[in-house]
């Protein structure tokens, strides 16, 4: 317990009535990452479940790691096959790490600084939600986006997407997607087109770095096999490409109960049904794109597993989760097919449904209220 004593010594000036009391949330946040605190139950149930928000959030991060590692590898892989250099697995990982680790550092640095500042300012403890958001943001960006843009997007997402609404648990939009949407509309040349998805693409002549959905939208044939789409060796945002590793993450989330399986299954059902209908119609390239392919290309899998399931911005009732999930899937394919400006629909579909989630919940709650009212009406009928 020597380390414990040292920490207690360090924390003394931050105690109640001491000089640095205002900064207690900051030091507590660091301390609680070493130790689960010695707080005991003061009211209510005397025993408590082992789960807490840190555990939940770290579980999400564990679920993200397979997709992240594959994303790092794929960044290097896309670069080397475009330049035509010979490379090993390790070369690809190293190249990807050089690109992506700085982005993660910037994202955590900027985001956590704002979170800590708000915690001190508002006098509450630092919430752990940003641990996940901060990792998600770089994972859904194009690889060559400048670091300062990452920083500004993060700041926008945390200020406007989250703290403006009152902080963790109150936000309407998913903060990570808010960051991406901000970058998407503020710096469109860095966020779409056929140059941004492969690292250092501008340095290479005659590159064909278009995403699959991008080339479909411009009416071109797709040159990738289903296997490649599923494994993820295709251009795209950093960690979204590999359906396989996203599925591994999904299994972790579903198995631990951290992510809502209803939303994930609902999303797949919604997208599959709409995809099948469009296959029958088949008026353009994106419509006749096989519905299974719709599920495994682009950010659909990543979005439905990691973004749509954010419990704060998703629907919160059990029935609402089904409806919300299905609609995310439906709108994703609709936006892909009908809006040539946005060949990738999942970001906007989820943000749209984030806005409508409270409405969905409202109707589920109203149904519950109505059941109770009907029950009462029946009783008065009987006695009358």
């Amino acid at each position: 317990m020597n380390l414990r004593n040292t920490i207690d010594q360090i924390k003394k000036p931050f105690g109640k009535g001491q000089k640095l009391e205002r900064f207690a949330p900051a030091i507590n946040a660091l301390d609680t990452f070493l130790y689960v605190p010695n707080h005991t139950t003061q009211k209510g149930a005397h025993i408590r479940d082992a789960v807490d928000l840190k555990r939940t959030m770290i579980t999400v991060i564990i679920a993200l790691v397979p997709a992240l590692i594959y994303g790092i590898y794929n960044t290097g892989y896309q670069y080397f096959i475009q330049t035509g250099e010979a490379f090993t697995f390790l070369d690809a990982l190293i190249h990807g790490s050089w690109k992506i680790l700085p982005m993660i550092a910037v994202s955590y640095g900027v985001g956590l600084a704002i979170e800590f500042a708000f915690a001190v300012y508002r006098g509450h403890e630092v919430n752990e939600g940003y641990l996940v958001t901060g990792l998600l943001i770089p994972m859904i960006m194009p690889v060559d986006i400048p670091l300062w843009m990452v920083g500004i997007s993060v700041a926008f997402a945390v200020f406007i997407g989250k703290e403006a609404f009152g902080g963790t648990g109150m936000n309407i939009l998913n903060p990570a997607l808010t960051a991406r949407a901000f970058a998407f509309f503020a710096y469109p040349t860095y966020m779409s087109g056929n140059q941004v998805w492969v690292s250092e693409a501008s340095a290479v002549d005659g590159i064909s770095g278009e995403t699959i959905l991008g080339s479909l939208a411009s009416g071109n044939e797709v040159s990738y096999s289903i296997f490649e789409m599923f494994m993820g060796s295709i251009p795209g945002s950093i960690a979204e490409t590999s359906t396989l590793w996203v599925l591994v993450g999904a299994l972790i989330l579903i198995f631990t109960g951290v992510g809502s399986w209803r939303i994930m299954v609902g999303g797949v059902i919604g997208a599959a049904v709409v995809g099948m209908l469009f296959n029958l119609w088949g008026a353009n390239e994106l419509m006749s794109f096989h519905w299974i392919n719709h599920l495994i290309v682009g950010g659909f899998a990543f979005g439905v597993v990691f973004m749509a399931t954010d419990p704060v911005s998703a629907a919160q009732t059990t029935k609402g989760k089904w409806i919300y999930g299905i609609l995310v899937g439906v709108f994703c394919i609709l936006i892909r097919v009908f809006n040539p400006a946005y060949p990738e629909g999942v970001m906007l579909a989820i943000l749209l449904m984030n806005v409508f989630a409270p409405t969905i919940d409202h109707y589920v709650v109203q149904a519950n209220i109505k059941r109770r009212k009907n029950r009462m009406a029946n009783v008065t009928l009987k006695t009358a």
Partner: protein
Amino acid sequence: MSNDIRIKKGLSIKLKGAAENIVIKAPISPTVCIKPTDFHSVTPKMVVKEGDRVKAGDEIFFSKYLDSIRFVSPVSGTIQEIKRGDKRKILEIVVKPDASNVFKSTKLKDLDAYSSDELKSVLLKSGCWPFIKQRPYDVIADPNQSPKSIFISTFSTAPLAVDYQIALTGQENDFQVGIDVLNKLTEGSVHLGVQSDTTSFFTEVKNVEIHKVSGVHPAGNVGIQIHHIDPINAGERVWVINPEDVAILGRFFQTGKFEAQRTIALAGSGVAKPVYLKTVIGATIASLLQAEDIENAPKHRFINGDVLSGETVSVNNYIGFYNNSVSVIPEGNHYRMFGWLPFVNNNIHSMSRTSLSWLFGKREYVANTNLNGEDRALVVTGEMERVLPMDILPMQLLKECMAQNIEKMESLGIYEVAPEDFGLVDYVSTSKIEAQTIIRESLDLLLKEVG
């Protein structure tokens, strides 16, 4: 008539130290105490002073705002102390028992000779009335109202809880008489929730509607049973009473004496010998314990009731008016290094699969009082719904309670719940929300505003 109810949502937590099936007589408690704080929302008005002599069954105070409800001494002796807290609030009335143990005796007619109102006034004077509680609000029943039905749950599914079948051994006849008394208080029926897989004497009780209930905690909570059998609508009243209190009521009608006998399940990993003990209401906690339990007391938390909804008391305090169990578990005021990592400290029980504790199946856990985290904003959804087997949206209800929105609370079903039904919500909450406190405060607000 028998209707089967199966409760699937919920969670039964197995803890170490369940009381063994042995009933022993506890040594006579050196002092006995009635705590007005046990009677929620009652403001006591004293009728005795320190030094007065009382018999068992003699009135010691009454309720200021419902003055027909009388509270009596469970033993004969002298009033040793009236302990007051802030603003002179009366906390404890301590009686020093004498050896004679004389009872106040009430002359009673045959049960059939009483009208409902006469019966009420006899019960009110006898000191038995406070046993009857009402839903909504979970407070002592208002004698001026009449309930649409009376519910008794004959089993508890809470961790380490009492087995009423053991507690009531030898009181079967008293229980039946108590049921007959209760039948005269309502125009509706008396409902008895019985655990479906047992063959207890409860299944043979007459003049009641028996409902077989099975499943996980909170299946034994009377509020859950009411919800599934005859749910409470706004404006309706349902009365509830604990099984051993029914027996006390029945005994009073046979002997004319208020015999406040209480069988306590002393349980938990903090006691050397977890057993059932026969004592009186208001006995000291220490009188139930072995010498080594008292020696270890500073390391343990003593709880009047079960570990999910009970009340913390010191070892020198007294057992409560309503509870049939005393739980003793270790305090958890220590740090756990990196304890927040998923899949570490799997010896702590968790409903969530972010811990591997589910792998160990039906193991008995040693739970301590550590919060296992810190309170946070509400982030995770869906976990409360898994432990509240009612057609109620717990998270939405709690949010309206926090916003003190009376109309919304009513339409979301606040009248159907009691704090104890939210014990598991407290337990499983990732954000460590104090749901029971929120519900209690909201019920108090409604009691004041709506009544």
